[in-house]
């Protein structure tokens, strides 16, 4: 490719999507009539014109090398005239018109180590974030936990035996890059120690007024430390949001002894049946235990299986819990209810149980 500067293009935007649509889609765009899931990971969309489009969905670690992308491209060439897409949960979808290509494609995908599935009543890939791969803010790793958890749940990706969809997401800090706050099960990295202040450098890298202002609980105030202008933190007021750290690198929250993972349940996004819901705190803290985070994988697996066993058909995690009640959920899941579970933020009062709808 040539040197850049001679004709510098800017603001060209992404390529037009039409360039990348296979002919069957161009011809049937907006004319799809219905779809059927043929088997795990395979569905067909049938057009009003009678045309059929087969989709094969393969799981992905999301973090992929160019070599892997080239492999995807090869498979697309081999079976799909070069057309493929990725999903909103980062899986790869191969778009076929020839039904006979499905099985060979699946065989090749499996050989490549990529499971096929994630459709319908299954667990799809875990939406996740950067973790220790790339983010300064991470209270835990992302890819590692995702791998460990999905190793355990792969069966549920490759089959469709669950009561409904189950969406898991992971975010490595409270910034929650992803839809962790609205997931059936969410894995969330958390800090539990107030910022350690780098008093030597703070005044060089950060504006003290904006550091103080960044704290939602007003835990930070200007102070002179060791003769240098800096800030101090009223530790009892800190709830470890890391907003100060986002604003100022000298307010480090990361801490090996206190960082870890919390587990949230019962969120959803779709409007199907129940309106969208936020995830709620189930397990306040599990330790960071790389490489396989056994406490986390166990906890997630237990939750999945508890739900799978007890929920009614179509009932998402949150719908199930809403029906049986949270006290019952805590009992069934064997999770101790603690002070941490009780909301004490802005709208806390609205989360108190203000009725006698209880079971015993």
């Amino acid at each position, binding site marked *: 490719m040539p040197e850049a500067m001679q004709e510098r293009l800017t603001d060209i935007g992404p390529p037009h999507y039409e360039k990348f649509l296979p002919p069957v889609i161009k011809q049937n765009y907006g004319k799809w009539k219905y779809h059927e899931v043929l088997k795990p990971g395979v569905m067909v969309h049938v057009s009003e014109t009678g045309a059929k489009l087969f989709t094969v969905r393969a799981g992905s670690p999301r973090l992929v090398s160019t070599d892997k992308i080239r492999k995807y491209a090869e498979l697309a060439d081999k079976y799909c005239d070069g057309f493929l897409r990725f999903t909103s949960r980062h899986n790869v979808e191969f778009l076929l018109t020839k039904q006979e290509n499905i099985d060979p494609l699946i065989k090749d995908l499996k050989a490549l180590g990529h499971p096929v599935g994630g459709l319908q009543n299954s667990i799809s890939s875990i939406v996740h974030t950067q973790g220790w791969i790339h983010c300064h803010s991470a209270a835990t790793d992302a890819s590692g936990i995702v791998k460990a958890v999905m190793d355990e749940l792969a069966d549920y990706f490759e089959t469709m035996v669950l009561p409904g969809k189950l969406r898991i997401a992971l975010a490595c800090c409270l910034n929650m890059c992803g839809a962790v706050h609205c997931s059936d099960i969410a894995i969330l990295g958390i800090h539990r120690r107030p910022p350690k202040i780098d008093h030597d450098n703070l005044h060089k890298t950060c504006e003290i007024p904006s550091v103080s202002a960044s704290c939602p609980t007003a835990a930070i105030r200007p102070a002179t430390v060791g003769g240098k202008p800096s800030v101090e933190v009223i530790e009892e007021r800190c709830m470890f949001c890391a907003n100060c750290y986002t604003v100022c690198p000298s307010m480090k929250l990361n801490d090996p002894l206190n960082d870890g993972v919390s587990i949230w349940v019962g969120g959803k996004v*779709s409007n199907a049946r129940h309106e969208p819901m936020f995830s709620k705190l189930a397990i306040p803290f599990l330790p960071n235990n790389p490489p396989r985070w056994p406490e986390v994988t166990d906890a997630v697996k237990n939750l999945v299986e508890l739900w799978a066993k007890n929920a009614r058909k179509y009932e998402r995690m949150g719908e199930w819990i809403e029906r049986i009640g949270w006290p019952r959920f805590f009992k069934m899941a064997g999770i101790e209810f603690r002070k941490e579970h009780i909301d004490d933020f802005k709208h806390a009062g609205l989360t108190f149980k203000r009725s006698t709808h209880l079971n015993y």
Partner: protein
Amino acid sequence: MAETKSQTPKLDELEKGRWPSFVKEIKTAAQKSPMAADLLGQLELSYNEKIGHWKHGGIVGVMGYGGGVIGRYSDVPDKFPNVSHFHTIRINQPAGWFYTSDALRKLCDIWERHGSGLTNMHGSTGDIIFLGTSTPHLEPIFSELTQAGFDLGGSGSDVRTPSCCVGPARCEWACYDTLALAYDLTMNYQDELHRPAFPYKFKFKMSGCPNDCVASIARADCSIIGTWRDSIQMDKDAVREYADRGMDIRSEVVDNCPAKCMDWDGKELHIDNSYCRRCMHCINIMPKALRPGKDRGAVVLLGSKAPIIEGALLSSVLMPFIKIEAPYRQIKDVIERIWDLWCEEGKNRERIGEFIQRVGLGNFLEAIDVEPVAEMVAHPRENPYVFYEEYFVEDEEEEKK
């Protein structure tokens, strides 16, 4: 590089198991890229120490753009000099994440020349993420990308890369053309996307129906979700077929309808469409028998976001139903009025959802010249604290005032 393996015993564990392994991906890349090799080393260090080793700070980017690159630096550069810089590039994906194999290979070519060879396909916002390069490579990457027809995505206080569900390209339920709208808004707001000038980030996400397959209601400042106004299209015979093939229409369909607007007498399914909430459930489970109506359009909602700092928000209804037709003036006009107001009165790092809550939805609507309608609220106020803005004064008093 052959010894890499033995140096990362913890990560090696994660090569095992049924799920595709990101460690394998890094190792593959590491065969060509010293950056990827050092990434592996630093990650192993993190696994041993249970802490990350990245630093933020220091704005990096390409000329004339204020976003699209996330600057990142190792805090142990002596141990892992190849990742002392390790910036990511956000590249605006094609709408619906459709590719040809050629396009993908072009991207790979560029990235193998200039970076770690590692990517995220894709980032949570939707971008193609090129994971790890150093500052001197930024301009060359940018220039090669644009030559290949790609451009950077957003970061910082700008419009972020819009994203959309597969929509009419493959889904029978798409109530409007999500790809066309995503593309149009992206092109229309190139300046807003590349030159951060807002109080904070602003995200668009489009879903073709209330299933909301891009989770737009949870993570877009503006969520545009397809729906319909008329009646669900029903093929009565097909319903009976579902019943014949063993579906318990009563318990699976009728009892799950949140509007309680369905009835099944064992032979025929009745829907009182005037109460249907367009939740999609019945359509979802009987795709051959039921379809969204024909008078289609979308709900426009505002304000979802992650919890920092006032707590997470879901988007809330701004326009209960509009037709979605190019050139989309109805959406653009209102969005632009909203941006004007927000840029004028929003605080630094205040998302639009937080802004609306701070100024009050009623005042917000007045300021952007939109009529309040009942669809905007889950329910009317429960407290009696109304700010009436005017009051009557007796004639005699008038003079006193």
